[in-house]
């Protein structure tokens, strides 16, 4: 009876996961989809506890509820309180927690096994079980440590990619070593010490894997690690013949992998390039053109006049906008211009910022209407009729070298074609290079002027200046 009910709970849960994920692919149903998934998860968890066959032990139940209560409080508060711009880091950390959970499950199972046989060396369960346990351990651990590193990189704590010489070779050797170790474990069994060693090696690999990758590519890595954790969960499901872990795990594993590939396509970079390539390193930067020409500097009063009398303005937001936390002041700018009869739109490049949708989330925070955010392919045809393009804290996404210079590291990446507009204004703090570490040809275009300053400060001055007119 209990068993059947539990299977039904898992069935309901599995359906909600699939339905929820499907609904999250559409802006209108996305929020509901998430809630449906949450409800299904709750049913599955409640079923697992209350429909457990076998005795209930007070201590164990207490610990379970305690852990859930503690986790709920910490998880909820952290997720609610954190700034929107810190969301990708948070996704990474929670992903790591899931990976660690999977790894711990494997360790406990191994511990049970060796405990039960009272340390008889070399004992091991049937191969299928062993593969599930060892795979869960390795994949969960890699996902855990990789996610922590990704968190530190996005956090700013670990800024530069750390690259040992021939790091690709080292990483691949370590990976083969871990797999070989795992294989040995499956076929020969071992003991807890070996298990811990395998665990540590997998953790090490997770670190080595993530550490050489640049911060701009982190969202792709997080998506990949996300699917790893799904895979680890699936192996757990295989181990326990638990259908909901299998469903949830494989669903996320496959969806996550595809999402990773889709993200790479949006950046026009192959996955291998992200994981194993050098982006913006010394060698690549040397491939950029030697830029000749001068840049023009524009004063706030002239810019205000220019914008005030324009008919059509397009704002290109970038990571700099997020860093300066200038999303509110840019909304004020939008308001004032629209009051004066200027049409204002925002051009959103797929990889602007540090994660897909970063700019959307940032601007939504300051109540910019969803319809004003226009995707790259939809807004590119409008640039020739645009009077002013104001680029705030964006760089590589508007660099024409992507179209014209085959030696450039960003060559081939689709960009916002702002060079077709009538006037181009770039707001940056200084002439320092953007994430790709290369010169931006756009700045030397005769139609382009630089408007230097921290985004928030500069835009505040601009708004103030506009207010004094009329």
């Amino acid at each position: 009876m209990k068993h059947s009910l539990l299977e039904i709970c898992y069935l309901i849960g599995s359906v909600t996961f699939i339905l929820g994920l499907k609904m999250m692919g559409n802006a209108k149903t996305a929020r509901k989809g998430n809630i449906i998934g949450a409800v299904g998860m709750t049913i599955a968890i409640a079923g697992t506890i209350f429909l457990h066959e076998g005795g209930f032990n007070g201590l164990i139940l207490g610990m379970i509820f305690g852990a859930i209560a503690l986790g709920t409080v910490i998880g909820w508060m952290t997720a609610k309180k954190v700034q929107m711009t810190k969301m990708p880091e948070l996704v990474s950390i929670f992903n790591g927690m899931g990976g660690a959970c999977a790894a711990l499950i494997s360790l406990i199972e191994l511990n049970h096994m060796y405990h039960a046989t009272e340390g008889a060396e070399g004992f091991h369960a049937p191969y299928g079980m062993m593969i599930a346990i060892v795979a869960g351990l390795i994949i969960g651990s890699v996902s855990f440590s990789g996610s922590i590193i990704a968190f530190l990189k996005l956090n700013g704590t670990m800024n530069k990619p750390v690259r040992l010489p021939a790091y690709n070779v080292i990483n691949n050797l370590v990976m083969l070593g871990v797999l070989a170790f795992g294989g040995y474990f499956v076929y020969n069994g071992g003991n807890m010490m070996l298990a811990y060693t395998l665990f540590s090696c997998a953790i090490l690999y997770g670190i080595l894997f993530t550490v050489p990758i640049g911060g701009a590519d982190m969202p792709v890595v997080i998506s990949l690690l996300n699917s790893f954790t799904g895979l680890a969960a699936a192996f757990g499901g295989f181990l326990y013949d638990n259908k909901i872990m299998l469903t949830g795990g494989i669903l996320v594993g496959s969806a996550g992998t595809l999402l990773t590939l889709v993200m790479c396509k949006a950046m026009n970079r192959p996955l291998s390039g992200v994981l194993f390539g050098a982006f913006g390193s010394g060698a690549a930067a040397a491939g950029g053109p030697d830029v000749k020409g001068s840049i023009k500097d524009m004063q706030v009063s002239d810019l205000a006049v220019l914008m005030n009398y324009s008919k059509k303005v397009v704002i290109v937001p970038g990571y700099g906008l997020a860093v300066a936390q200038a999303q509110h002041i840019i909304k004020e700018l939008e308001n004032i211009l629209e009051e004066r009869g200027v049409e204002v739109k925002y051009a959103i490049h797929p990889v602007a910022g540090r994660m897909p949708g970063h700019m959307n989330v940032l601007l939504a925070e300051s109540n910019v209407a969803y319809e004003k955010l226009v995707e790259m392919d939809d807004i590119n045809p409008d640039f020739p009729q645009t009077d002013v393009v104001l680029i705030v804290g964006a760089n590589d996404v508007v660099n024409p070298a992507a179209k014209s210079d085959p030696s450039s590291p960003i060559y081939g990446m689709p960009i916002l074609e702002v060079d077709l507009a009538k006037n181009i204004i770039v707001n940056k703090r200084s002439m320092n290079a953007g994430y790709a570490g290369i010169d931006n040809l756009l700045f030397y275009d005769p139609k382009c002027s630089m408007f230097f300053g921290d985004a928030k400060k500069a835009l505040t001055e601009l708004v103030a200046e506009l207010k004094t007119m009329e």
Partner: protein
Amino acid sequence: MEQILSFFSDNREILYFVILSIFVGIEVIGGVPTVLHTPLMSGANAIHGVVIVGAIHVMLNVDTNNILALTLGFLAVLLGTLNVVGGFVVTDRMLEMFKKK
């Protein structure tokens, strides 16, 4: 060779299940607008928190004299909960921003 073949034969239902699930995962992601990639990633993150079910299962069957297993089990459930709760709440916050005004 024989071992491999009989493995596939004995586990054919699970294999169908796995293959179908992979296709479902792929279908579900197809045609998603770029702007929803991050919330979707976050949602998928929350869903793989289902690993907590495994942790709870382990805990319910643990030997109360095994302090190590008890501790690791507690930790596993805690981490799983963080994944689940944190995951769904973060996703909800991201999606909150998609209200049409």
